[in-house]
């Protein structure tokens, strides 16, 4: 059986990759995708512990996170679309709120 640490390290890598993506990419779309990556990392951690501790709480949480992620994507993509419509760009540095 694969030890739990493998899963956790993979989850950490996913989370950090996502985080780096959010921080260094300018495109709102890519940032959204990176956030999804971070959520996937967190989900993996939840599921791992759920499996190794023999409790279903983690899996239930993972479903919740997926639902939230779906909602977030729906809203996020809508924002991205209207950004493109109004400002003709998805570059977060160019959409100055002021």
């Amino acid at each position, binding site marked *: 059986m694969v030890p739990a640490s493998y899963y956790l390290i993979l989850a950490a890598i996913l989370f950090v990759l996502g985080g780096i993506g959010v*921080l260094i990419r300018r495109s709102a779309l890519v940032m959204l995708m990176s956030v999804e990556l971070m959520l996937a990392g967190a989900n993996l951690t939840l599921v791992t512990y759920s499996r190794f501790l023999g409790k279903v709480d983690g899996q239930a949480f993972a479903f919740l996170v997926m639902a939230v992620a779906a909602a977030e994507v729906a809203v996020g993509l809508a924002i991205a679309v209207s950004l493109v419509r109004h400002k003709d760009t998805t570059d977060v540095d160019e959409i100055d709120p002021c």
Partner: protein
Amino acid sequence: MLSYVWLIPALPLLGVLVNATAGRWFGRRLVAAIASLAVGASFALASLVFVTMLGVPATALDGGNGREWTIPIFRWIVTGDLKVEARLLLDQVSILMTLVVTSVSTLVHIYSAAYMRGDEHYKRYFTWLNLFVFMMLVLVLGDSFLTMYIGWEGVGVCSYLLIGYWFERESAAEAAKKAFLVNRVGDFGFLLAILLIFSKVGSLAFQDVFPAASALAPAAATVISLLLFLGASAKSAQIPLYIWLPHAMEGPTPVSALIHAATMVTAGVYMVVRCYSLFERSGSALQWVAWIGVLTALFGATMAIVETDLKRILAYSTISQLGYMFLGAGVGTYTMGLFQLTTHAFYKALFFLCAGSVMHALGGETDIFKMGGLRKRLPWTWAACLVAVLSISGVPLFAGFFSKDEIMHLAFVEGNIALGVLALVTAGLSGFYGFRLFFVTFYGSPRVVERSRRSRQMRASSSERGAPSMVERAQGIHESPWLMLAPMLILAVLSVTSGYLGLPKVLGLGNAIDQFLHPAFSASTRSSLGEGASWTQWAVIGASLVETSIAITLAWWLYIRKWGTAERWSQSAGWLYNLISNKYYVDQAYERGVVQPLRALAAGLSSAVEARGIDGAVTGVGRFVSLAGEGLHRLNTGRTRQYALVLLAGAALIVSYLLLRSVLG
């Protein structure tokens, strides 16, 4: 009969309610009639109760006071263990006070009906006067310190309202304020005493407190008694809080007669007498009462000698006579203190009503040196005033003689030589200022004609004292209407007859008022009329007679025989005259010592504490918030990735803290 006692205070209250609510539809006569009838009915009831009381044996089966009843009215406050009943206490002392209050009130109400006829705010006047009577009856009939306090504050408010009755006049408004503020000082003492009593005894009802007085520590009793006496000295105008009474003369003259001579100012005496067991437990407190009383008597009398304002002479005289009452109570002869209270109520009310009649005739003039020669013009007033003067001077056969000589005698026997001598000196002074007022006002050449013509010219000026309306009607000097004269004549009769209630012991006849009141003081260790040898009483009577005759002769010589001598004398002894006529600079001392420091303190507080402290704190909070906002708004850059970085950094910090904690344990 007992079940109707509550009507005695309730009837004046009914008068207040009727006149205050429906009075606007009534004519002036009806308003006055309602007010007078309400008080008169309560006097009639009180007399009935008194007669009933006389039919009950004075000694109960168990040896206590048989003429003492508490009458429940309603349950007032119920919270947990604290239960306060509103009850009336009917005994010899309270029925005496009730009779004095209601009888003088009735007469003053009738007098007022004529005196205030021209006044615009007739209804307001009678409403307040009735309210005063109600509050005074609550004060004297209440069976606990709490009820007494209600009445105490109530009469204070009525006094304030009636002193400032002509509040359009600056001086009246100031005088009302002064009376109220000075009384607050005393009321504060009274309130502290009440709280102390409650904390020591656990009850405020008289029937619980007074038996428990003997169990109090003497020191506690002293503190309580002195605080009570502070309250009494403000209400009854004793040193050092007498300063409001002369100014209280700004009110209408019937008000001065009722409130500031006959009834309210005697509340302090009543309170001291009522709480005698507390004062006796303390011991030293009674000495204080006696000394303050006799000093005030002397002090007030000297100021009355040089005063030229008709009503203020009477005010200082009242202060002086109240001093006698406290002297009587202070040497432990409460019955004689109350006797002096009773006779004084009649003859001083009479004196004030005479003064009102004179002012009525002269269009509001109050300077006695602008009167003179009124004997022929105002014969009835002259006669009534003569009775009052003879009474106040302690001329034999008049009331003041009996009550004052008894107190002077007891001051020697129960107190000490110094108290007695001071009281004797004051008696001489009383004779002098009484007859000075009488001679200057009613004899000599009329100095009034020129003045009254001038006052008619100055009719429009509001600086004129007395009722503005009276100035209007001053068409020459005229005797007052019968509605004013009748109460004066009744009071004159009472001023003579009331003295015979307390005949001196040396005559071998019974002292009726002492016998009547004595059972109320059965627990007292001191209250027996002096056992001293009768020669002291003869000596006191003789000395006071000699002194009074000298004083009257001197007044006659100075103010009738050799008009003008007094002026020369006062000039040759200028410093003394100045000292006294400036009221010993007490007002100035209060101004410097109390009023100005308080003003300075208030100014300091308003500029330092208020502006910098409280306002500073409020504006400080505001400024802090706006500064913090200014600082924080720099973080709001609008750069999305910066936010994300901060977010992540924070999460990383939290995680590393948790990790470190779990690793390091």
